[in-house]
């Protein structure tokens, strides 16, 4: 019941309609520039380009139309950050993912407003934020457990000690579900970084606001720079760089478009990228979270050592 009120209250982050403010001679609110998130910083796109987006409160914002070079910069940052992120203890990564959930929870009001401004009802916004927070906590808990569940000690028929454990695949480029405002993005970022990968994610083209605000949450959550990079822009322009970059180890593409799938899988062969293609789904469903989404971006490493001598 309280949720709809937030839409009528004067906005604290400057999304109140501009004309109205001027007419009533009230304080001019400060508008937010929505930028992209690369290497822990919030640059505008290097290309200087934007696409206009009309919000449901009539306000128009200018969203960064990220370029291939923004993506390249993101990959450099992600590569630079990867080894250190993977080198943190699983327990530490777990706490950082949990910290993201904490930060998101404390910003419910802001996210509700932005989700509503992007067309959600107050009720669906509330649910989406709740599930988002819970999903982060779900994967936070897996960080120091998936290896215990999915590793093995292998009883080889020679006098060797032999075990297999999971390591992160490396740098992952992901195109998030374009029909989801927030949950689709979080549901792909969380399992990818849980094991120690770093990620460059393309947000939904039509719903970029909450993705950028989520970057602010990440920035305040002890997530090291470069571990998560978030771009806004167009699939049509970025699908090729995402799937052809030679320093990207795996790609996740959420698409219902067969041609996009063909393009992604064809390009992935350039450096034998691991590819996961998925159609747009209802991310609220509990079956859409499981540890196998962590496994999709891991490599099994088997180590041998002789016994004896």
């Amino acid at each position, binding site marked *: 019941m309280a949720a709809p009120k937030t839409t009528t209250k004067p906005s604290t982050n400057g999304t109140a309609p501009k004309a109205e403010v001027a007419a009533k001679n009230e304080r001019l609110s400060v508008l937010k520039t929505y930028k992209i998130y690369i290497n822990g910083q919030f640059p505008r796109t290097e290309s200087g380009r934007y696409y206009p987006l009309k919000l449901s409160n009539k306000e128009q914002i200018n969203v960064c139309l990220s370029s291939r070079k923004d993506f390249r910069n993101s990959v450099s940052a992600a590569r630079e950050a990867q080894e250190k992120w993977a080198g943190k203890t699983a327990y530490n990564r777990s706490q950082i993912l949990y910290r993201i959930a904490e930060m998101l929870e404390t910003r419910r009001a802001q996210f509700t407003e932005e989700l509503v401004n992007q067309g959600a009802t107050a009720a669906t916004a509330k649910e989406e934020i709740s599930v988002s927070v819970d999903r982060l906590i779900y994967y936070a808990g897996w960080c120091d457990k998936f290896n215990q*569940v999915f590793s*093995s000690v*292998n*009883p*080889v*028929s*020679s006098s*060797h000690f*032999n075990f*297999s454990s999971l*390591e992160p*695949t*490396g740098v992952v480029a992901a195109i998030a579900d374009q029909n989801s405002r927030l949950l689709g993005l979080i549901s792909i970022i969380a399992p990818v970084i849980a094991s120690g990968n770093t990620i460059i994610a393309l947000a939904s083209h039509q719903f970029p606001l909450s993705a950028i605000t989520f970057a602010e949450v990440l920035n305040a959550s002890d997530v090291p720079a470069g571990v998560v990079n978030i771009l806004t822009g167009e699939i049509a322009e970025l699908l090729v760089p995402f799937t052809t970059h030679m320093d990207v*180890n795996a790609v996740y593409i959420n698409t219902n478009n*067969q041609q996009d*799938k*063909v*393009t*992604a*899988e*064809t390009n*992935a*062969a*350039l*450096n*034998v990228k*691991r590819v996961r293609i998925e159609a747009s789904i209802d991310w609220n469903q509990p079956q859409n979270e*499981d*540890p*196998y989404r962590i496994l999709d971006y891991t*490599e*099994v*490493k*088997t*180590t*041998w*050592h*002789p016994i004896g001598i």
Partner: protein
Amino acid sequence: MSKKQDKTPKTSLADLALDFSSGFKYEPAPESTSHVRIEKQYELFIDGKWVAPLQKKYFDTISPATEQVLSRIAEASAEDVDKAVKAARNAYENVWSKISAKERGKYLFRIARIIQEKAREFAVIESMEGGKPIRESRDIDVPLAANHFFYYAGWADKLEYAFPGKKANSIGVAGQIIPWNFPLLMAAWKIAPALAAGNTVVLKPAETTSLTALKLAEVFQEAGLPAGVVNIITGAGATGAAIVNHPDVNKIAFTGSTDVGKIIQKAIAGTNKKLTLELGGKAANIIFEDAAIDQAVEGIGNGIFFNQGHVCCAGSRLFVQEGVADKVIKKLKDRMKSLIVGDPMDKNTDIGAINSKEQLKKINDYLKIGVNEGAEIFQPACTLPKKGYFCAPTLFLHTSQSHRIVQEEIFGPVLAIQTFRTVEEVLEKANNTPYGLSAGVWTDKGSKIFNMTTKLKAGVVWANTYNKFDPASPFGGYKESGIGREGGLHGLLPYLSLS
């Protein structure tokens, strides 16, 4: 006399060169080939029967050690492939997916047992056609192949324990394409997990090594495996392409070069075919100053000269820490002088025949490239047989990261040596490759081993050992060395869909 002797510098026992030849001589100890049965001509194994290829084309298979023709092998066309896929589909829908998992497992156990019973025949044929030393096919390839079936047999009725929280479902028809370096073993690596998971198979062996896969088809008949569950079709690249592109194949598993792997990954883009790739490698074998040097030298040799270096995980880049470089290289050269190169059928042979004329040419081209790039070549004096395809064990000194012989997979008995000073340096160099299949580390310090094994980007890391394989042990690469794992629990996943 005695004065003279005093003047000679004292040589410590450790510095003495290995001498296996002056005291006694190795007499030839050839394995008899009289008991093996090789048909004059082999047809395609489709739907449990031997059928002639529709286009009536055949090709010769030869012994790379003698260049003698061993048999004529059918060349399958796209139409033959279609027949095989139809047989596999039919067997999947109507037989294999209908019988209980327990029964499925029992077929695999049977197959394992029959391979064990025919181990000698398999080993002899493997060496005759592939060129590998009989000692290796007898002690490694064939036992491992039998063990692989035995291992996966037990999984057939236990799949619900393998992937917690999920139901494991079979996926249908698996198209499998295998290389010539471990013909029977690769067939076992591919077929055993596919069948245990409830799928049916169309398998193509490499064109230079079809015989043991065809003998395996005879084992399937003998085991009473239902018709169509495994179809073995022979041929070259075009036959493989027909399998990859067949619309009714649900899964492709390929072992071979990275170049071909990329072509396959591209070819199935946009289809829903699952994919496993086991591709090339350029493994770093790293020797620290605190390693047990004699064991390390033995490991270096096993790493690169095992199976003539026709091993995707061969330790083809050697990194020796500077303080022990001279000693290691001296001992390695010395050890190389004692290697016996020659008749694969001789039980004394260490290095057999190069698998084919083409491969020998490729290796020899790389030897020239290495010399032209300025590396220093060393080959022990050894007499190579006049007939057949042979290559002396070779090492290159003074190589650097930019050399082609350091970057590219040679797939022969050729080792490129670099030295290093620090852990950071060697990690940087070892990981600076598009490949990531395997690596080796030699040190007596446990904490150093774990530091290295966790930081090396490779799917298999051998510490104080090299080139060990086991059905229970997952195998497969990072980066451009492949996708997915074969062997062990993790090797089941590529043959299942989880729901």
